[in-house]
C-alpha cells in the first residue's frame, strides 16, 4: 500500500511551520539555529517524497545540495555565534538591539 503524497506534504508543512515559529519566538540563538535546520530538513523530506512519487532522481540530488550547503551555512553561523559570545558573553538574541533607528 502506498502512502498518498498529501500526507508527506502535510507532515513537512507542519515541520516547516514549527521551524518558522521557533525562529520567530525563541530567544536562544542555538535553538534558532536548530529551528532553521528543521525548516531545511522539512524541505528535504518533501523533496525526497516528491522525488520518489514522481520517479525522478533530480529531487534527491537536490537534497544532497541542500545538505551540503546547510552544513556550510551552520559552520559559518556557529562561528559568528562564537564571535558574538566572545564580545557579549551571551547568546540571547534580545541583546541584539544596539542597531536601531
Amino acid at each position, binding site marked *: 500500500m502506498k502512502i498518498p503524497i498529501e500526507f508527506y506534504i502535510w507532515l513537512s508543512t507542519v515541520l516547516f511551520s514549527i521551524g518558522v515559529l521557533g525562529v520567530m519566538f525563541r530567544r536562544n540563538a542555538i535553538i534558532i539555529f536548530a529551528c532553521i535546520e528543521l525548516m531545511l530538513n522539512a*524541505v528535504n523530506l*518533501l523533496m525526497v517524497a516528491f522525488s520518489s512519487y514522481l520517479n525522478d532522481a533530480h529531487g534527491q540530488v537536490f537534497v544532497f545540495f541542500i545538505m551540503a*550547503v546547510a552544513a556550510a*551555512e551552520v559552520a559559518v553561523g556557529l562561528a*559568528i*555565534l562564537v564571535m558574538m559570545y566572545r564580545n557579549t558573553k551571551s547568546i540571547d538574541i534580545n541583546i*541584539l538591539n544596539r542597531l536601531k533607528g
Partner: protein
Amino acid sequence: MNALFVICGIGVFSLLAEVFNLKKWVQAVSLVGLLAALVFIVSDWKAISYYYQGMVVFDRFAMAFSGLVLIIAFFWFWMSIDFFKGEAHRTDKSALVFFAIAGAIMMLSFNNMAVLFLGIEILSISLYVLAGSNKENLFSTEAAFKYFLMGSFATGFLLFGIALVYGATGTFDITSISDFILSNPPTKLPRFFFIGGLLIMIGLAFKISAVPFHMWAPDVYEGSPTPITAFMSTIVKIAAFGAFLRIFSFSLVYFSPALLWIEQGLMLLTLIVANVTAVYQTNVKRMLAYSSVGQVGYLLLAFSSDSRHSSGAIFYYLVAYALASILSFSVVHIVEKAKGNAGIDNFKGIFKSNPLVGVAFTIALLSLAGIPPLAGFFGKYLVFTLSIGKGFIGMTVVAVITSLIGVYYYFKPIIAMTQPGEDSISVSASQKLLLLILILANLLVGIFPELIRLV
C-alpha cells in the same frame, strides 16, 4: 561562462596566495582578472550558450547583468583598497569577495533552480563572513548575526517553494516549468503550486529586501564595514533582482495573476514605508540603506507593469542606481574613515574644505533622487513611462509622491555639507580619481541614456 571560471579562479588563487606567500600579487591579479572576465563577457556577447545540460544559460540578460556586476565590482575594489590594507586576513577577504561575485553571476545566469539555490548560498555565506569581518566591533558582529539569521530563514522559504513547484511540475528547469504551465490549464495544476510560487517570491523578497521583509537591511547595512555595505547595496542587489526577474518573468508569471497582485502589494509597501522611514534617519549610512530599500520599489513597479518585457528599463535603472550608490558609498567611506562615523553632522563643511567630495556626494544623491540630467532621472522616467503606458496610473502616482519624499531626505546631507564645519578631510589621489570617474559615469549615463538602452 568563461567569466565565471575566471572569477572562481581568482577566488582560489587568493586562498592559495596566503600559503605560497604571494600576498602582494593578490590585488593586481584581482583587478586584471575582473577586466579579463569583462572581456570574456564582451567577446561572448553574440551567442546564447547553454552549459551543463542547460542548467546554466548565458543569454543577453545574463551577460548584460553580469557585465554590470563586474564593472561595479571593479569600482568597488578601487573604492575599498584600504579594506584590504590591514595585515590580517587580507587574502581571505578578497577570496570571499570573489566567491560572492561568482555567486552573483550564477544567480544571473541560472536556468535551473539548483543553480539558483547554489548561487544565492555562495553569495550569502561569503557575505555573512564579510559583514562580520570587523571582529572586535560589536556592531559588525551584530550585523553579521542578523544577516545570517534572516538570510538562512529566507533560504528556508525559498527552498520550500522550490520543493512545492518541483512536486507540481516534476522539474527544476525554468524553461520546462514555463512549458508545463503553458500546456496545462491553471485549474488542473495542484493548489500547492501557487503556494510554492508565493514562497519563492517571499524568499527572494528577503534577498532584494522588499518591505515587509526588509527589517534586516537597515541594521545590517549600518553595522557592516562600509565597503561591505557598498557591496551589498550594489552587487548583491543587482544579483538578487536579476534572479527575481529571471525566475518570475521567465516562468512563474504565466501561472497566476494573484502572484502579480501580491508583488504589487509588496511594491506599494516598499515605496511608502522605506521612503517615509528614511526621512527620520540621522545616520547617512542608515539613510542610504532605507533609500536602497526604497529603490527596489521602483524596480518592482517596472516589473509589475510589464512582467515579460521590462528587463530593459530595469537594467537601465539598475545601472543608474548602482553607479550612484557606489559613488555615495565611496564618499561615506572617506568621511567615516576621517571622522569615525557617518552621522549627518560629520558632513558639515565639506563643500568648503573638500569641494570634490562635496560635489561627488551631491551628484550621487541627486541621481538617487532622480533629478535631471543625472542617470537616476532617466531610470525613473523609463519606469514611469512604462507603468503609465500599461495603465497603472494610481501606482505611478504613489511612486511619484514617494520619490518627492525621497528628494526631501536626499537633500538633508547636501544641506549639511553647505553648513559651516571645522576640519578638512584628507583624500588620496587615487580616491580623487575614482570620484572623478564615477561623477563622469553618472553624468554620461544620464546625458546619453542611449548608451545603455542599445543593450
